[in-house]
């Protein structure tokens, strides 16, 4: 069965057969783990390999190697969906939260455009800590902005900072002054304008709404023309609200 798998790791029937063999013949599961590790590095986008690994870890009841294993896969392909999904599973199932924030911090320092790492950070923050404290929110927002300042046209930290802020009492309003400053410093940055527009559109004053409209129209006609229809929709929606 392993010969079949080595030639064609996506043949899911072969994997079924292998699992039955393991189950029925009492094989050394730790050796099997090593076997899967080699195969995963050769076929990192294959669903069956990852699922098999998970079953073996469950059989063993021991996930101590999983961080190192997923880290190796992530080093080869930093956005591998399966590797990140597996890491999340291991962390959540075996309570391996320690060191995860530091891990994402490291990866983001190397590549701030790694959306998977940003997602994992959010996952760790919100799953292990339950409700986020105001100071947690403050430090995470600053963490995101520090990356934004270095590379403002990177979508991921912009999504992240909003997700974090929305967990706090004051919502997106906490970000207002920082985003104003970024929009001014980076006039071609569509994310800054978009977020500022959204924040302003939620304020009650006529002046804020007018500025938001202006931002949306600027996005439609200058900074983000490929999404012109979306920005005109935002401007229109605001206009309708203004009439009410």
């Amino acid at each position, binding site marked *: 069965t392993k010969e079949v798998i080595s030639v064609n790791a996506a043949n*899911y*029937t072969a994997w079924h057969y292998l699992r039955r063999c393991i189950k029925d013949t009492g094989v050394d599961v730790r050796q099997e783990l090593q076997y899967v590790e080699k195969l995963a590095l050769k076929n990192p986008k294959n669903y069956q390999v990852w699922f098999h690994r998970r079953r073996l870890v469950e059989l063993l009841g021991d996930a101590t190697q999983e961080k190192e294993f997923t880290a190796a896969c992530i080093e080869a392909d930093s956005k591998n969906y399966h590797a990140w999904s597996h890491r999340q599973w291991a962390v959540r199932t075996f309570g391996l939260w320690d060191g995860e924030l530091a891990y994402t911090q490291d990866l983001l320092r190397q590549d701030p455009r790694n959306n998977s790492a940003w997602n994992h950070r959010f996952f760790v923050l919100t799953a292990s800590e339950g409700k986020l404290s105001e100071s947690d929110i403050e430090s995470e927002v600053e963490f995101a902005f520090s990356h934004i300042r270095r590379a403002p046209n990177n979508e991921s930290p912009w*999504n992240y900072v909003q997700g974090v802020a929305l967990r706090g009492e004051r919502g997106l309003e906490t970000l207002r002054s920082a985003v104003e400053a970024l929009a001014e410093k980076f006039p071609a940055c569509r994310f800054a304008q978009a977020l500022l527009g959204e924040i302003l559109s939620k304020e009650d004053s006529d002046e804020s709404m007018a500025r938001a409209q202006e931002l949306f129209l600027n996005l439609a006609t200058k900074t983000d023309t490929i999404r012109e229809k979306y920005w005109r929709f935002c401007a229109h929606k605001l206009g309708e609200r203004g009439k009410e």
Partner: protein
Amino acid sequence: LRCLTAERCGCRLYADGTMDGAPFVREKHREFILKQDAEKGTFEYEMSEFLRISGMYWGISALEIMQNRDNDRDKELIDFVLSCQHEDGSFGGSVDHDGHLLYTLSAVQVLAILDALDRIDADRVAHYVASLQQPDGSFAGDKWGEIDTRFSYCALLCLTILDRKNFIDVPACVEFVIKCHNFDGGFGCVPGAESHGGQIFCCVGALALTSQLSRIDPDRLGWWLAERQTSGGGLNGRPEKLPDVCYSWWVLSSLAMIGRVHWIDRDALVRYILACQDQDDGGIADRPGDMADIFHTFFGCAGLSLLGYEGMARIDPVLALPVEVVQRLGIPRMYPEI
């Protein structure tokens, strides 16, 4: 105006600055698809045996969308599909391959298109699908237990075609999907997993099939989806990743389901898909210049169909079947008029 795709993409740039996409080589695509079957015995053919039945769905659907399919081999195709079925109602990816939800869905889709659903015992298939539902509402792909929102969609779609959604706990299925709703408005494969275009298609599809789209904010999701369009016109599946033709389906159909297809720059995406064609040997690739395959050929055609490209039959974004087939089956439209 500059074509940001690739050098030999086939785009024609005119003196006045306007640009035409490459010609759509319909006949070459037909030959490419029909040729797949003649490749029996080649390495690639044998390697992909485990998903043969899905390959059939992609090929048949692409030909239907291009309005370029002959039905002279239908009996042979139907017989093959039926030969993949097991006692428990499931279908494997090919003959003697174990049953799996993915291939059960492909089988049902193929039989629907070929108007041969009466050849199977719908109750038996539905029982198999229902047996895969977990206590938390999620679905496993097969008896081995891999959980993924892809399977929630597959289960619902299969049962919708067979008109047997009542075999499963629909509210529980929906609640699991909702648990996968992320902070950025997208959906992942399980709760907490990264938002991904393919997973979003499955989750939004699941919500559409159960009339639960009101559970999400369409503007927020629509924006995330519109953000997938890169400067070259193509769509990616996650932030900061490369575009891929298959997202012309996963992302576009999601937008169609929430009534926001127009948030994408249509012309730019059409040019991208056309640039991904192999003008010489037919077929469509993930990216301009790469090798074509049947998977991307189908998704490229499906994307063009959703964009209203000339000569393409309409495809239902929720059911991923030609609209003509959906109407024949009597399934109501579950998305806003495109």
